[in-house]
């Protein structure tokens, strides 16, 4: 039910002019609910950012979500599969 709940909240945020991206754990639920932007992650329920205590891995997931927000070519509903990239694990200083 969590996937639906965050999708419905995301929709309200977008109605009020806040851009959103929602991590989703169940594709079949997201395809019914249709949050505006969804990142499907291949992790168990309870582990949306994958590994507890592993900041590098968590940053990899967050970076994938942020890239969806930045892609101006996407149109709703946006469904993106998480593609882990081994070398994008930590935040990089932006100049």
């Amino acid at each position, binding site marked *: 039910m969590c996937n639906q709940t*965050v999708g419905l909240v*995301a929709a309200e945020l977008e109605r009020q002019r806040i851009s959103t991206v929602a991590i989703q754990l169940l*594709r079949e639920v997201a395809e019914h609910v249709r949050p505006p932007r969804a990142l499907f992650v291949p*992790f168990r329920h309870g582990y949306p950012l994958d590994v*507890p205590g592993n900041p590098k891995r968590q940053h990899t997931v967050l970076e994938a979500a942020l890239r969806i927000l930045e892609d101006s070519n996407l149109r709703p*509903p946006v469904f993106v599969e998480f593609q882990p990239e081994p070398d994008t694990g930590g*935040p990089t200083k932006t100049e």
Partner: protein
Amino acid sequence: MGAISEFSLLVQVFLKTYRWRRIDPIPWKPLLKPLAQCRLALVSSAGFVLPNQPPFDEAKRGGDPSFREIPSNVDVASLLDTHRSESFNHSGMAQDPNVAFPIDRVRELEMVGRIGRVNTRHLSFMGSITAPGRLMRETAPEAARLLVEDEVDVALLVPV
């Protein structure tokens, strides 16, 4: 990907027959400036509360649609998991709440300039809401208004 097969047979039947709400039309706010200039808020459905906040009401029929405000400077170790669902393993959240409420991670993103600012408050829902009418009519709009007041540009939503 999480899978419905992770759940008990009873829950699987419920999920297969449940009338999922459909967002139609899909609202859309394009990102109009660089993330490095954006204010970001987290919205988690992990049911986290602060020690001085009431827990989510696990007995509420259809699920508790309320939310809690979590300040940006929270010590994640102080967050209490009051999510009512027994359908997933809570031990990862107990070990590291960042796995479902990544406040330490977004602070790090601010420090390196990947995002502009971490908002001063974030929102915690308890996502096990089978009857989301009040969520859709009342609490989600109220939550959004708070983040609009804060001039939040982007929100990252994290289910469990």
